[in-house]
């Protein structure tokens, strides 16, 4: 695996390495700039930075709006992830372990909320909540997020179930275990890391989502992305917005680290 001489010429090798290096540099430069700017003493963030300050960080720490929005985002993410775990796993079991009419349609149906532009899902749900008289708030945000998070759990669970095949379960049943016992002792432990990876992706997507959220939130209940967007064009708030952005960039390392530790390759196999 380490070096494969012969197939690819040295020149192509170097060109490919250079293109890859450049692409990865472009991926990281904007993020690094935001983090550096959060210490930039200039309010307008001209480049290069004029001086160093930690004022913006302490301002952001005391911003009540940002804190409230963060709490809403965490609650919405947890709620949506719980629902997605349940529904995604059930659908994955049905599709992987049974043959039935419309089986291919299930995959398409699960994919639809994420394949259709977010704005479509957003206004469809907005319209439905209005017609049903459901008040906008945390509950409607969770419903919206869960809808497009199902596919992430579903894909991870389905891939794992297909790889496992049904023989472990058959063996367990042959030895006299019932459906519940087999699930508890055999299937669930084998699927745990895939489910964890799916849940992690679902939470991250929910935490990050803004388009569907715009149409399912109320003015009083804002998630963190909504808060950032609302304050993005206010010159007064620019330094605080920049700090929140920088903090989110730095914090995004945590789930990757978690995924690598617990789930191994399941997350890297995400598509």
């Amino acid at each position, binding site marked *: 695996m380490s070096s494969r001489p012969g197939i690819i010429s040295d020149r192509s090798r170097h060109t490919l390495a250079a293109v890859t290096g450049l692409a990865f540099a472009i991926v990281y430069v904007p993020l690094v700039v935001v983090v550096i700017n959060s210490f930039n003493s200039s309010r307008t963030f001209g*480049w290069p930075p004029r001086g160093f300050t930690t004022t913006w960080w302490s301002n952001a720490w005391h911003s009540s709006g940002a804190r409230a929005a963060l709490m809403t985002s965490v609650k919405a993410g947890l709620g949506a992830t719980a629902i997605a775990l349940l529904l*995604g796993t059930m659908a994955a079991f*049905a599709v992987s372990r049974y043959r039935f009419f419309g089986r291919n349609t299930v995959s398409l149906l699960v994919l639809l909320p994420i394949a259709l532009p977010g704005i479509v899902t957003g206004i469809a749900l907005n319209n*439905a909540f209005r017609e049903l008289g459901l008040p906008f708030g945390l509950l409607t945000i969770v419903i919206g997020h869960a809808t497009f998070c199902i596919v992430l759990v579903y894909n991870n669970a389905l891939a794992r179930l297909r790889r496992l095949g049904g023989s472990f379960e058959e063996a367990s049943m042959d030895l006299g275990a019932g459906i519940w016992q087999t699930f508890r002792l055999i299937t669930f432990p084998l699927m745990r890391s895939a489910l964890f990876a799916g849940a992690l992706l679902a939470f991250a997507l929910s935490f990050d989502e803004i388009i569907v959220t715009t149409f399912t939130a109320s003015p009083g209940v804002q998630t963190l992305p909504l808060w950032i967007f609302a304050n993005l064009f206010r010159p007064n708030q620019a330094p605080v917005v920049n700090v929140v952005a920088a903090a989110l960039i730095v914090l995004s390392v945590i789930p990757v680290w978690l995924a690598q530790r617990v789930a191994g390759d399941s997350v890297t196999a995400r598509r």
Partner: protein
Amino acid sequence: MTVATAGRPRVPGFARGRAVSAFLHRHVWLRLGALLLLPMLWLVVAYLGSLAAMLIAAFWTTDSFTGAVVHHTTLDNFRQLVTQSVYRTIAIRSLGVAAAVTVVDALIALPVAFYMAKVASARTQRLLVVAILTPLWASYLVKAYAWRVMLGEDGLINWLLRPFGLHGPGYGLVAVTMTLAYLWFPFMLLPVFAGLERLPDSLLEASADQGAKAWRTFRSVVLPLLFPALVAGSLFTFSLSLGDYISVNVVGGTTQLAANVIYDNITTGGNLPFAAAAAFFPIFAMLAYLLVARRTGALENV
């Protein structure tokens, strides 16, 4: 239940669990139904139901004085969308941006994925996979914001270009395409990388042995086998670009895309029926794309 419990010891609790288990074991359809009931209620009844209700709402109008929705079927919204040239321009512009983003991402993803899958050492490969996944977890809005900072008048890009007497694109259509391509790049890279990983090295060797040069091997061996992965990736880049109004607001200046029309009609216009009618465009553009993609067998890769 009585059928299933017959002949079993009647220990309450435990026996009941066993009985349900045995009953379900014998009735495949019931098991399947129990598994499918909740997901289908959610996705078919709640989600597809909402979509259908929205599509119906597109045929309604709003009262121009009160702003209330008038439940009277008419094609007025669609007539307006089709006949007014501004909407046609926006639709074509949106498709153009989505296509450009997809092409740019594919062109960058191919060499990068090839390097990751076929050239890099196992260690480097792992590192690069982590490196591409990490920014995926950073907020989408934050990344769009980062490009706003980069592309600003005093931003890094202008600072880099100034010594050469050049000036960056500023906020506008080019900035939107760049930002969207940046945002959705991992969604193209990962399926292409996975597709290349599955491609056995022996195929490349065989092609080289038959005398094919690098470009010929790429065109005749790699590309056809990678096609489903590219379609899978393009599904994300195309759809995500088509539904985006955030990046347009953040780095687009005054540029309008299809999603802006929908967004503005709900937030500032308060005209849900018109927004719903406008939403027909991305829905059908995407459904057409999905159906074509399904024919290529690419959905299995998503």
